[in-house]
């Protein structure tokens, strides 16, 4: 076996693919944290969305409707998180953890009801890969970017839009103000509550898109716990990327590489699967340890009390 069997263009194409759900979830994390709400429920939002997408695709035969359902499911969970943390000022970590546990139980429960198995659903119509003409003929770059499932391209577009929105639009200015100094935003006449809700719901929707990728873009079924901690890795990518969409994308590439490498090694059977599966998590811990000192969060995450 040569090194070329492991490290080749296919690996980089896979890297981009595996970076997609992490990026989308990380973008979700950014929008939530930028308005001052910690969202560790990205994992649960992704999982519930992955499930919802598959369920709707199963019943309608249309994977794109599934994607829509996934985004909606994520947004709904985002709304719940927002209600608990913004209106009721509940502890953000506890709320997020509750949503994560709920997602695990709910998806397994419904999986059992619909397909009779809590482990995996039946195969459903999924998103077919598309090829971009001209782009796919460029050597190397074309092989990586030219042919991918549509959600990969969506991810790239959404990342650029997110960066633009945050730093070049009035809404982005308000989002950053609300997270960093809600009192200042309030006295400027901005509705802090509305902006926070917006940020957290968008956060859920983005995570939902990431979940849709996992179940409809990457595979074509739902499996128990298929998010595998990516929602948490996305948080690390968010911190690594200094809460900026382009930065989070860069960090996600790194984690996506680890993910793709792990799958490649597993399929080649070089090392026992469990050892390989550990890699992305260990990498996340190391990455977090290495970079966090220099990263300043965009908010102090305290619930805003007007009095």
């Amino acid at each position: 076996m040569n090194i070329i069997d492991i490290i080749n263009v296919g690996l980089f194409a896979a890297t981009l693919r595996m970076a997609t759900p992490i990026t989308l979830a990380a973008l979700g994390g950014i929008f939530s944290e930028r308005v001052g709400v910690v969202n560790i429920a990205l994992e649960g939002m992704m999982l519930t969305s992955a499930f919802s997408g598959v369920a709707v695709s199963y019943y309608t035969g249309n994977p794109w409707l599934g994607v829509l359902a996934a985004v909606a499911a994520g947004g709904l969970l985002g709304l719940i998180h927002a209600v608990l943390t913004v209106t009721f000022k509940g502890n953000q970590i506890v709320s997020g953890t509750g949503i994560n546990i709920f997602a695990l139980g709910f998806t397994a429960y419904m999986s059992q009801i619909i397909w009779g198995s809590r482990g995996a659903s039946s195969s459903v119509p999924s998103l077919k890969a598309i090829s971009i003409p001209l782009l796919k003929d460029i050597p190397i770059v074309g092989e990586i970017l030219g042919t991918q499932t549509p959600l990969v391209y969506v991810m790239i577009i959404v990342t650029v839009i997110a960066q633009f929105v945050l730093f070049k639009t009035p809404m982005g200015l308000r989002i950053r103000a609300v997270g960093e100094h809600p009192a200042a935003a309030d006295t400027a006449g901005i509705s802090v509550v509305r902006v926070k809700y917006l940020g957290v719901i968008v956060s859920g929707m983005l995570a939902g898109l990431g979940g849709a990728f996992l179940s409809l873009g990457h595979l074509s079924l739902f499996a128990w716990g298929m998010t595998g901690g990516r929602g948490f890795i996305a948080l690390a990518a968010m911190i690594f990327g200094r809460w900026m969409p382009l930065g989070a994308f860069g960090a996600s590439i790194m984690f996506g590489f680890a993910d793709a490498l792990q799958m490649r090694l597993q399929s080649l059977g070089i090392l026992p699967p469990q050892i390989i599966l550990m890699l992305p998590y260990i990498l996340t811990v190391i990455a977090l340890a290495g970079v966090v000192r220099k990263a300043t969060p965009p908010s102090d995450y305290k619930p805003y009390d007007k009095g």
Partner: protein
Amino acid sequence: MTEGEEGIYRENRLPSRLLAKLRSGLLRMLPQVIAVAAAFLVGAVVLVATGYSPLDAYATMLTGAFGDVYGIGQTLTQATPIIFTALAFLFSMKSGLFNIGAEGQLIIGGFAAALVGISFDGLPALIHVPLALLAGALAGGAWGFIPAVLKAKLGAHEVITTMMLSYVATYLTSYMVNYPFKAPGWVAQTVPLAPSAQLPRILPPTQLSASFIVALILVALTYFILQKTTFGYEVRASGLNPLAAENGGINVKRTMIIALFVSGAMAGLGGSGEVMGVHGRFIDGFSPGYGWDGLAVALVGGLHPVGVVIAAVLFGALRSGGMTMTRVTHVPLDIVIILQSLVVVFVAAPMLIRYLLRWREHKG
């Protein structure tokens, strides 16, 4: 006041003080009780929406959990590891840190205990059992120590690192028990522990083992440490106001590291108890999510050691009663997880509970 009257006063003081404490304790638990009730309500909605009868489901859960000696024994057996992980989360919370990796700490502790249990032969139980328990505690403690140090020295958020290490523990032990330490046969498990390393069953024919006793001892110990020792004082101060604690000369970082070590060790001890008392060997995937249960139980128990025991029994009942419920009514077992998550969510919204309380006041 005459001698006689004084005597009566003295006699009445102890029981009335206890009653007062009981009443205040119950009142303090009211938000949690309402959260549990609300969770069951929403769970009932889910059941009805998917075509099941909540009354049947809940009723069979109740009889399954408490209906007979076997049921009670199984309930307490399921409650035992949850007590450990709940104490682990509670202890970390008191120091101001979120240890959500109790699941992994439990598993790695169980494996370490198994290692000690299968590696030595001919040791007297008096040595072997504490040794295995110690190994489990140390392994779990290490799993808590690493995120603690990363947080203290580098500011790495412990929510992410404990979660990541949980996955690492799961995969690491899975590897161990699928390859180097695999017992002959199809199942991914170790060979049985030496009898000298196993904890005795205390309520045959149920699976209830001496691990339950260890759990109760740990509950008392936790209360004692937190309330009656300098270390506990420093843990609580660090958790409530680290700046003031620092100004008062407390080394907050060191306290947090030790607290997270202790937290992980508690979970690890729970894993050891399971391996040594219930299964007699380390089986891949032996924990159906006791770490998550522990989190919910700690919250429902109001982060108080006594509340933890009560809530753990409740959750143990959910699990053991749940198995009966699935068998009889065919409701998927995961409704139990849904119920638990709803409890967590409702506990996270104290204001919601207060709204409900005020609403009830207005109504009646």
